């Protein structure tokens, strides 16, 4: 909201600097976002009178003007605008002037003709966004006068952001009231309009409220003989500086009252009201209205309308109707000021997707006491600036006058919550600055809340007012004297921390991708039908991810398209699945993505790429780290190459899968063949973490080691060989691992060589060759007979 310092001065004699005022408002909870001083950067711009306008000899779109700026000879200025004529007065930036945009005026030749200055539009002067041509000044402007003075630009405009609870501050009066409290200055204003006039309103219009809850008060005042026309400069200037376009004197007056005291108003063309009657009622089921913004709108019975004897003429508190609006031909104006229920206005405005300055204020609560004040003041202004004759009296329907809210405030509670030690008198003094009247009840206070403070309804609200007036920065700093209940990190939390550190040590970069992903992704990335957003930002962010694989795929791909081929990425986050009753389940997941070289910066092994076994190794590594027993089973996830993937099992429960990306998903030539993704369900892992157990004694006796080099048909799985070795090794075979796989020169076709390291140990005695040899023989013979695997 834009607030003018000059306007505030109608209410308060404040002589602080703009910065000091802004600071005080900030510290009071009304955030000043910007201080605008339109005249500050305007030097050397004066009022000029166009003496003649001729076409530019070499450019048909340009004009050549002779302009009197009361500085000796008239200036010759080339101008591109089209809306001026000889005799008009316009702002002229002289040579050396600097405009708010930073543009500096110098002598220039434009299409061969010298131009000594520049005639300006409103936008060029920085006073409005309007740029439909030059700013044609009032004909009485004094030639040569500095434009800052001529247009009263030496004003200060505060752009204030007002929190939703402070509807009372949405006006100049509201801000002045706050300043009066902060600076402890009196609030005053010139005498207001009164109810005087000719005839009597009751004879010319009736007001009927059908829903007293949604409209507790509706007032109307009639003004005849209005001459609709432009507003006087003072009014236009105030509105424009406050960011509202001047329309005509009648509409401007209603907007003026709204900015002045915060009460939205509406003006009807009295001649167009059927039956000279106002009825405040719910809209009929299929009623329609064309609103001022030229749109046809369907209403329903949840919406409150203002109607005449026949039809709706306005959507209550939101917008007036086109048919009954004030036009140039209007002569009698019916002014409306009312109080509408905030929730009802908000619902209607949301339903119609129609926001207005009115609805904005009604939603936040207006001052019901302002109804007559707004009407009388508007009538006075119409009389003053539009020659109107107000009719005596207000048609004021106010069936159940509001009673002031009373809030009990306990001194002890105030001090306990804020952490200070004020006496009841001190509290009263602070509240009085905010015009909150109090009455003593022993040590406690009963506070009467003015009708404009809709945010004050419970004791805590008053405590905030005390704290604000006391000054947040005067409150001491202490530390809470409590010890919290103990809540240790959950196994999942501990696991996530462990994994993050581990992956970083292993060279992985952590990514964080959106929880919502495109609705149109390859079906294979979906584990379930995704939960959909009702109101997504875009189609690309409209489905909750059912797995982290798509995000990883997308991340890998986008990096690869940036020519980053060696990638190690991980993400820890939630996957979302639909659950019973239309609700959702969240699963903690770990997703890993690899592409390119396993270690591109190892100059000895840089050519080695990731393969399925690097992934399997990494996953085993995590399982060992977390102390979870895992198994591997054949995988069947359609994201992966059907043959190059595995499923991770914890006991009998699948807990994840990994594999090489399916060739069909490599949809860009840059993408290498070997991209791997793994996804693990951390919730499932967390439930399977095993206790570390007790230590085993260090063996005292030496182990006997043997290597076995085997020649196996390629169809024989490592697992099958291992099984025979371990069964035959019985308890004595302490360790047995594969240390080499070879295929190629020297090895028959369809065969491979597998080399195992075996280590035997008897904890009770030193083993001899004679004890081991029979065991090895049995292994070899079973390998041969069962698997056709030979000793090399």
């Amino acid at each position, binding site marked *: 909201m834009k607030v003018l310092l000059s306007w505030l001065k109608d209410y308060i004699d404040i002589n602080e600097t703009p910065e000091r005022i802004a600071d005080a408002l900030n*510290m009071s*909870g009304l*955030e000043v976002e910007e201080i605008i001083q339109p005249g500050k950067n305007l030097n050397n711009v004066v009022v000029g009178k166009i003496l003649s306008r001729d076409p530019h000899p070499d450019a048909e779109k340009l004009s050549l003007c002779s302009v009197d700026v009361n500085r000796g000879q008239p200036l010759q200025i080339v101008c591109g605008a089209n809306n001026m004529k000889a005799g008009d007065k316009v702002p002229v930036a002289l040579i050396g002037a600097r405009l708010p945009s930073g543009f500096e005026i110098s002598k220039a030749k434009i299409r061969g003709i010298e131009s000594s200055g520049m005639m300006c539009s409103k936008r060029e002067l920085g006073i409005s966004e309007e740029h439909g041509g030059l700013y044609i000044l009032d004909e009485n402007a004094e030639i040569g006068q500095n434009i800052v003075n001529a247009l009263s630009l030496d004003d200060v405009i505060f752009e204030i952001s007002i929190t*939703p*609870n*402070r509807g009372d501050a949405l006006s100049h009066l509201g801000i002045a009231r706050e300043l009066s409290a902060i600076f402890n200055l009196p609030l005053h204003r010139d005498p207001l309009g009164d109810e005087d006039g000719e005839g009597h309103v009751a004879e010319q219009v009736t007001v009927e409220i059908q829903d007293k809850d949604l409209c507790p008060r509706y007032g109307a005042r009639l003004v005849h003989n209005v001459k609709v026309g432009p507003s006087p400069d003072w009014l236009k200037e105030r509105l424009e500086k406050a960011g509202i376009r001047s329309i005509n004197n009648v509409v401007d007056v209603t907007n003026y009252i709204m900015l002045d005291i915060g009460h939205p108003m509406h003006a009807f063309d009295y001649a167009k009201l059927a039956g000279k009657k106002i009825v405040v009622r719910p809209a009929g089921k299929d009623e329609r209205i064309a609103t001022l913004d030229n749109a046809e709108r369907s209403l329903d019975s949840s919406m409150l309308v203002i109607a005449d004897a026949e039809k709706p003429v306005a959507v209550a508190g939101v917008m007036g109707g086109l048919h009954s609006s004030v036009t140039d031909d209007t002569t009698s104006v019916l002014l409306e000021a009312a109080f509408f229920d905030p*929730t009802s206005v908000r619902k209607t405005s949301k339903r119609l997707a129609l926001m207005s300055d009115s609805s904005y204020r009604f*939603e936040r609560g207006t001052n019901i006491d302002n109804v007559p004040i707004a009407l009388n003041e508007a009538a006075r202004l119409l009389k003053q600036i539009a020659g109107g004759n107000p009719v005596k009296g207000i048609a004021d329907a106010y069936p159940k006058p509001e009673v002031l809210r009373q809030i009990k405030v306990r001194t002890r509670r105030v001090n*306990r*919550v804020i*952490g200070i030690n004020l006496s009841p008198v001190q509290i009263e003094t602070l509240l009085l600055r905010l015009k909150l009247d109090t009455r003593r009840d022993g040590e406690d206070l009963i506070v009467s809340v003015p009708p404009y403070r809709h945010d004050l309804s*419970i004791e*805590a*609200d008053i*405590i905030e007012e005390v704290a*604000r007036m006391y000054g*947040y920065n005067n*409150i*001491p*700093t*202490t*530390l*809470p004297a*409590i*010890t*919290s*209940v103990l*809540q240790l990190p959950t196994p999942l*939390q501990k696991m996530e921390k462990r994994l993050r550190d581990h*992956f*970083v040590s*292993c*060279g992985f*970069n*952590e*990514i*964080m991708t*959106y*929880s*919502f992903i495109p609705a149109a992704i390859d079906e294979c990335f979906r584990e379930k039908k995704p*939960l959909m957003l*009702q*109101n997504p*930002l875009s189609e690309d*962010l409209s489905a909750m991810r059912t797995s982290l694989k798509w*995000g990883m795929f*997308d991340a890998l791909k986008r*990096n690869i398209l*940036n020519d980053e081929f060696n990638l190690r*990425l991980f993400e820890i986050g*939630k996957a*979302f699945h639909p659950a019973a009753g*239309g609700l*959702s389940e*969240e699963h903690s997941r770990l997703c890993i993505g690899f592409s390119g070289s396993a*270690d591109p*910066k*190892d*100059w*000895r092994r840089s050519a080695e790429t990731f393969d399925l076994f690097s992934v399997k190794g990494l996953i085993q590594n995590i399982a060992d780290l977390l102390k979870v027993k895992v198994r591997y089973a054949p995988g069947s996830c359609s994201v992966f190459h059907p043959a190059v993937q595995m499923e991770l099992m914890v006991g009998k429960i699948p807990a994840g899968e990994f594999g090489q990306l399916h060739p069909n998903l490599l949809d860009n030539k840059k993408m290498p063949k070997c991209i791997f993704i793994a996804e693990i369900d951390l919730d499932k892992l967390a439930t399977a973490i095993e206790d570390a157990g007790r230590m085993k004694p260090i063996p005292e006796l030496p182990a006997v080691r043997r290597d076995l080099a085997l020649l196996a048909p390629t169809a024989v799985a490592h697992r099958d060989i291992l099984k025979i070795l371990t069964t035959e090794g019985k308890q004595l075979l302490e360790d047995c691992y594969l240390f080499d796989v070879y295929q190629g020169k020297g090895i028959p076709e369809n065969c491979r060589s597998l080399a195992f390291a075996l280590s035997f140990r008897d904890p009770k005695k030193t083993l001899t060759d004679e004890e081991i040899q029979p065991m090895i023989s049995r292994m070899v013979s079973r390998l041969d007979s069962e698997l056709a695997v030979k000793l090399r």
Partner: protein
Amino acid sequence: MSDSHEQLLKQYLSEKAKAATTADLEGLRVKYLGKKGEVTELLKGLGKLSIEERKAAGAAINDLKTQIQSSLEESMRELALKEQEARLSAEKPDHSLPGTWPTAGSLHPVVQVAKEVADIFLSMGFFMAEGPEIEDEYYNFEALNVPSHHPARDMQDTFYLESGQVLRTQTSPVQIRTMEALQPPLKMIGLGKVFRKDSDITHSPMFNQMEGLVVGENISMADLKGTLVMFVENMFGKRPYRFRPSFFPFTEPSAEMDIQCIFCEGKGCKVCKGTGWMEVLGCGMVNPKVFEAVKYDTEKYTGFAFGMGIDRIAMLRYGINDIRLLFSSDVRFLRQF
């Protein structure tokens, strides 16, 4: 010592002076002390002498032998050492070749900052709580004193699921869930992703928040200030701060905390829009209506809550100019942290 012995010793010494390697020395040993060595030959010649003569001459030859022997041993040690040095230094690789252990990765900058923030509160005796990202409207709004059709809902443009649930717009529902589960006194922080319908260089439809809650008997606004000042000083260093009144439906009184701009030290710059101040968090005393929602005794307990955008702090900390970079997964960005 006889002249001939002296002569022999001289000869040995001059030859030894020329010896450059341990092999040369070994040659000398054979030549003088070997089976047919010159000193050995002298000893063999003793048999031709009488017992008397033999005694004296034997002692002299043995003396010569010992001299040569110890001289040889000493030189041998010296040369062996030199030779080893030469041999080892020949093994020197190109030290300038790069090391080859796998390069370390990086934690996401937001995760790093969240950890920093959390560590401060955990050290102050807070515990960490979590909650779901998809919330019921009740937890995200109603229980936090934001009724439907209240203008406060405009403060956060909400994503709705088809089920009518919402993507939480703040981590504050974690407060409600924690209070439903535990009785005071408690000091908790909650961390997580939150969602608002907004997207530009300073707003992302998904971002990260850290939430805090302290509830107990006699918890005051002074405690709120003290706790947050302690946090801010540990996070940003000791610097001027201020609390400004503000509005959050779930706290009353409510405040925003500013610290002196970390870029211009209060002089005014682009980041702080010339004000010299940077907003770091929102906070306030828990609104009794929130306590009513979780059935806490509003007379017995008071408390304070606070919340801050972790992404924003990360952006300030690292000078990140576009919030969307955080969610870009771009390794050219991620590797910098």
